[in-house]
């Protein structure tokens, strides 16, 4: 088990750098360079040349990449070409906001989806099943920017229940922080809630048909015991897989959600950096995302073993 863990962790480093190489090439393939974007309308040719030189963008690409990798291995991801802020600082100061939003979105998605999916499966064909299925179709089909704008329009502008955007850190005020968290978390979590509900429902239906459920019932176990103790635990295996993948999806959804709600997280930073061709920041974010995605996958694999004792990595 320990050996497995070490091997998986060690594999992450080359994968991360492979990802960074691909991203580096892709970003530099796009025709616009940051100096033009930074100077914008003050784009006189002399100013652009001077800025390119200052940012070392006039060096050959392989040299730029090798410099970056060398520094990265020493823990230095460089500085933003737009703001001159150290990349590590730029990401770490925004990470708490994104983590909070991501966890909240995932949490409400799991807390709602698993009971809803289970009930829908148990009461198949009933109005509550129809409602749950309807919700899953709508949740998957409606893009989250639309949900976000709709929530702002109705709950913020008309009913004044929640602020339309912005962020207060937990350290400043916990109630205000939570108040501002509600709408973005709902926006970001809707798609995953819909998917998880569907997965729980179908997986549950499948498990309920299994022999061991009938055996457990025949042995006189209570309905509650059978559902919670036998069925649900087994039904959750595919759901856990999906949730693992969804961590990536949540990070991707954060790009849009953070922009709509002016949420100062990594997603918004990523959007601004891509539009501004802020290479060092883009690289830093991709590296961070690659690691978090791989860690999430690892956590999913470990969770399998816990949910189903027949799976082991010895």
């Amino acid at each position, binding site marked *: 088990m320990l050996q497995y863990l070490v091997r998986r962790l060690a594999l992450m480093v080359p994968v991360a750098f492979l990802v960074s190489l691909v991203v580096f090439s892709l970003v530099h393939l796009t025709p*616009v360079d940051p100096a*033009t974007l930074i*100077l*914008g309308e003050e784009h006189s040719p002399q100013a*652009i040349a001077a800025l390119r030189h200052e940012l070392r963008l006039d060096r050959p690409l392989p040299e730029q990449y090798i410099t970056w990798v060398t520094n990265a291995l020493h823990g230095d991801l460089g500085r933003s070409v737009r*703001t*001159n802020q150290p990349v590590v600082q730029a990401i770490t100061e925004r990470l708490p906001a994104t983590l909070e939003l991501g966890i909240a979105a995932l949490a409400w998605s799991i807390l709602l989806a698993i009971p809803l999916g289970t009930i829908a499966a148990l009461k198949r064909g009933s109005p509550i099943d129809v409602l749950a299925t309807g919700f899953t179709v709508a949740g998957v089909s409606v893009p989250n920017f639309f949900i976000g704008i709709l929530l702002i329009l109705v709950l913020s502008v008309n009913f004044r229940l929640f602020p339309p955007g912005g962020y207060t850190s937990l350290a400043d005020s916990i109630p205000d922080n939570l108040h501002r968290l509600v709408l973005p978390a709902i926006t970001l979590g809707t798609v995953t809630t819909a998917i998880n509900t569907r997965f729980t429902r179908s997986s549950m239906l499948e498990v309920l048909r299994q022999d061991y459920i009938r055996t457990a019932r025949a042995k006189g176990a209570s309905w509650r015991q059978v559902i919670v103790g036998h069925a649900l635990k087994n039904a959750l295996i595919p759901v856990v897989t999906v949730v693992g993948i969804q961590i990536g999806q949540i990070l991707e959804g954060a790009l849009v959600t953070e922009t709509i709600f*002016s949420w100062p997280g990594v997603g918004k930073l990523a959007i601004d950096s891509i539009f501004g061709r802020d290479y060092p920041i883009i690289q830093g974010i991709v590296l961070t995302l690659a690691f978090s995605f791989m860690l999430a996958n690892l956590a999913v694999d470990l969770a399998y073993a816990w949910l189903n004792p027949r799976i082991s990595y010895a």
Partner: protein
Amino acid sequence: MKRLAVGIVGVLFLSACASGGTTSTGTAPKSGGTLKMAIESELRTLDPVKSSQRVERQVYYNMYESLVTIDASLKIKPGLATSWQYTDPTTLQFTLRQGVKFHDGTPFNGDAVKFNIERALTTPSSPRKSELASVQSVEVKDASTVVFHLKKPDAALLAQLVDRAGMMLSPAAIAKGGADFGLNPLGAGTGPFQFVEWKRDDHLTLKKNPNYWVSGRPYLDQIIYRPITDSNAALAALRTGDIDVASTNAIADKDIASVKSDSSLVYKDTAGVGFGGFEVNSGSGVFADKAKRQAVAQALDRPQILQNVFFGVHVLSHGPIPPTSWAYDPSERLYGAADVAKAKAMATGFTFTMKTPNTPVSIQEATLIKDQLGKAGITMNIQVEEFGQVLTEAQAHHFDAALVAWSGRIDPDGNIYGWFHTGGGFNDGQYSNPQVDSLLEQARVAADQSTRKSLYGQAQKILVGDAAYIFIQHDPAQEITSSKVHNFSLIADSIDRFAEVWKG
């Protein structure tokens, strides 16, 4: 699916029932309070020497001060300098305000002026360098007198000094800030508000400068700037009172009508200092033929563009000098109305490509232009690209036409010289006319404003006639505030200054 559709209609109906706000009245200024302002994008730097974004000036003007400033009619008035005079055409002497201290407690004096101007001139990639190109050296005569020695006369220099090129920052604070100065400029200004903190993508806070040299100002305790890039979100924040002020450009033109009709909000505007329309490449390709450029200028129905693309919020443009400038001549009306027959007589049956930034408004504008020109037998292809790409190709002169506008400068020189002088820094269209060059050079060295006005008038008449650029609109400078915000001064440079503003 039907059920879902019904649900959405229901929600839209609910949202249509907008609730009203409150209005407040009061005349006596009230001290205290926090003002929250939405800016249309995040800033890049708080160091004026590095700045290249218009939005950065929103914060600078409340924190830093320049030697000279402007009033609502764009006339130069004293700032950190109480008076100035040209002792000869290349020697400009300033008398400095006494007793002014930077926020870090160090004194503002002649040495600080010399330091700041030299810093702007020696920072290689600084956009300020070209703005101060006429400055040879700065001499500190005594504690209250500095002299600018110029390479050649420069009538536009004072106007350049109003903006970032003339902002005075504490040398001690800059030294202390080091590489991170642009992110954390503690104690660097002399202005009504001082820097507190900047949490990027979240907020930037300024607080009242208790030792401000104008006694009794500012009224506000604090300003919090919030970057809100999504115009719908900015409008929602304004409506719910989450912000008090939205900067020019933060609210989309399509929503201005609803802002105007909301009694809890205040909307005013005036023509801004810039110009919009599109660049045409006079140097090569199809538009090297002047008649074809003129045909395009003649065939355009500008009022239709203003109405349909800009929702009537922008002002019709007749040239690079906006109506708010002292150099504006209202009698100039070349290509005033669309005239298809006249355009066809000039040139017809040719094709060109318009480089169009990939924003919905630009694409809409290009589509309408294409349609209008089509009536005059001119075929326009629309090539949509990212804005940075449009800029790069325009600068390399690889284009026929490009939708690139100019945010404008308060002095007419800043709107004309770089754009239309042969080889100018922003002359993407390679326009070159010796007569225009000579008029612009004369205007640069003429000391007298009425002479300059007449010279710019002549230059404008020629370059607009030549269709060196196809002028369509002047963007507005806007006041968009809650009705709780008082004493707001609307200035054409669209920068919101809060020293005199109070909240009640």
